[in-house]
């Protein structure tokens, strides 16, 4: 009897391990396949022989990519927008979350501001009127079109409000009794104890800016001004234009898959570099988010 039960438990355990491993591999193998394609000879790629290891290993496409000036121009635009965009995002997150984290007794107008902010998070006029505003301000074809429309990351502001609220009131009180100004208290007390939360929010901004292709597509009229993701999106856009199945088949055989795979792999490297930090902080970010307004 006992043996039978433990045998059942053993089978269950094996089954659970197998399912978890399969699900995990499903996330990993397609990406490894991409890397393998980027490192394989073009005829092997065209014949679809590449699995998890490169076939006819070659660095040809990587050498070609090094000389691809448009790719690196777009890469540089993306780097600039990540730096500029994240700095702008952080400025607004801090300057907005701090006053809004105060109680309505200390800052009665908070109640009005917070409604305004929540409304801005929930309701949008849609892309067409936004496009009109951005082009009306003559921001199209400049880097500002990539960073200003999303300058106030409302969701992250609310995340940060929740975090600032969890800072013990006594710290704030002690400083105020000593005569410190609100700005001093923010810089000397709130920011230092909020570093993990600030890191979380900054990482969200970095990933968001790096991954965004749509504002490039919308606001940039010249391909030379595309950020990296828009540039890559345009390479693969052929596939969204086809009108019959035969054409789709031909396209996938004709296009330079190894070279495209290389571009994709290289465009992902910056994310992989910050991934350990991302992983460390985003769980805490979700937990902060769970402390509701």
């Amino acid at each position, binding site marked *: 009897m006992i043996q039978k039960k433990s045998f059942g438990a053993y089978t269950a355990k094996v089954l659970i391990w197998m399912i978890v491993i399969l699900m*995990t591999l499903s996330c990993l193998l397609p990406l490894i*396949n991409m890397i393998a394609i980027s490192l394989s000879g073009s005829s092997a790629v065209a014949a679809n022989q590449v699995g998890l290891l490169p076939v006819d290993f070659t660095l040809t496409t990587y050498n070609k990519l090094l000389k691809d000036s448009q790719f690196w121009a777009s890469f540089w635009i993306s780097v600039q927008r990540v730096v500029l965009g994240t700095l702008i995002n952080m400025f607004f997150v801090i300057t907005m979350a701090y*006053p809004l984290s105060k109680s309505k007794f200390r800052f009665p107008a908070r109640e009005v501001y917070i409604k*305004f902010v929540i409304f801005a998070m929930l309701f949008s006029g*849609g892309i*067409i009127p936004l496009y009109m505003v951005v082009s009306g301000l003559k921001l199209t074809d400049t880097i500002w079109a990539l960073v200003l429309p999303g300058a106030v990351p409302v969701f992250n502001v609310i995340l940060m409000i929740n975090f600032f609220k969890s800072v013990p009131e006594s710290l704030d009180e002690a400083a105020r009794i000593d005569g410190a100004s609100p700005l001093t208290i923010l810089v000397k007390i709130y920011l230092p104890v909020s570093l993990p939360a600030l890191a979380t929010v900054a990482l969200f901004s970095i990933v968001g800016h790096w991954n965004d292709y749509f504002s490039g597509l919308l606001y940039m009229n010249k391909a030379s001004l595309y950020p990296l993701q828009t540039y890559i999106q345009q390479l693969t856009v052929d596939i*969204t234009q*086809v009108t019959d199945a035969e054409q789709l088949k031909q396209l996938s055989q004709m296009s330079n898959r190894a070279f495209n795979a290389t571009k994709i792999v290289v465009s992902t490297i910056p994310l992989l570099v910050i991934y350990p930090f991302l992983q460390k902080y985003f769980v805490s970010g979700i*937990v902060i988010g769970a402390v509701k307004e």
Partner: protein
Amino acid sequence: MSGKKAAKAATGKGGSKERLTFHLMLLPGMIMLLIFVFIPLVGSLMAFQDYIPAKGLFGSKWVGWENFEIIFSFPDSVQVFWNTLIIAFAKLVFNTIIPVFFSILLNELGGRFFKRTFQTIVYLPHFLSWVVLATVVSNMFSLDGPINAFLGLFGVEPIQFLADNNWFRTVIVSTDVWKEFGYNSVIYLAALLSIDPGLYEAGSIDGASRFKQIMHITIPSLMPTIVLMVALNLGNILNAGFDQIFNLYNPIVYETGDIIDTYVYRIGMVEGQYSIGAAVGLFKSVISFALILGANKMAKVTTGSGIF
């Protein structure tokens, strides 16, 4: 003077100088929201106009509800509305079930090292953009790709998944679940950790098998979190995932895969019918807004916490 300040600090009341600082701090952010959120909101009034860019919002002719009548008379837009609902609803269901399933299984595994490794890997696709993943997905689902090769083992004829109206939605939903299940499981894993171990001890003393414990302890304990997440995501039911579909669809599958957001983009930005596009967008915004408020209320009633 300093005595007064101390008294103020002690009662938790801010001085007028402090309040002025707060107003000034909020000013730049409010200006940005005004420009990029509230002015476009006014701009969406173009949905009630025959908008001509050269004439602007104030010069264009007002046409009342005409654009909305036009939209609802298109068979396309009705189809687009249904596509959106079907895809978003299927995503909501599977983006709940699979992460709950995965987090329960992961929680059953012993060994911190393996657990952490698995987690590290399954979170990864969440951080990659759909631009990148669209290439990965179309590679996987291509005619001579791995999925067709696998199905071929069972004698299935190769399928053009991304150009077949019978399959397109399935591919969209399953690849979205694939991208997000790791990330979505984080919140359930956190909830699992907070279950009182005493419950399991009591369960095993009573002779409940591990499976019975999962059915009668784990799942009921997760229920409040599940309900909260579903309620909050209900507000997103008109967001079927623009980035994903925009990067994977093609005219062959418009019939099953075209959603409100992709439709607005094509009508408004590509074809230049600004007013019609804005009308569809406004229609969506209003319904979404109502849904989010409703969902938040529902979450507050059922679980005591909402998002705002």
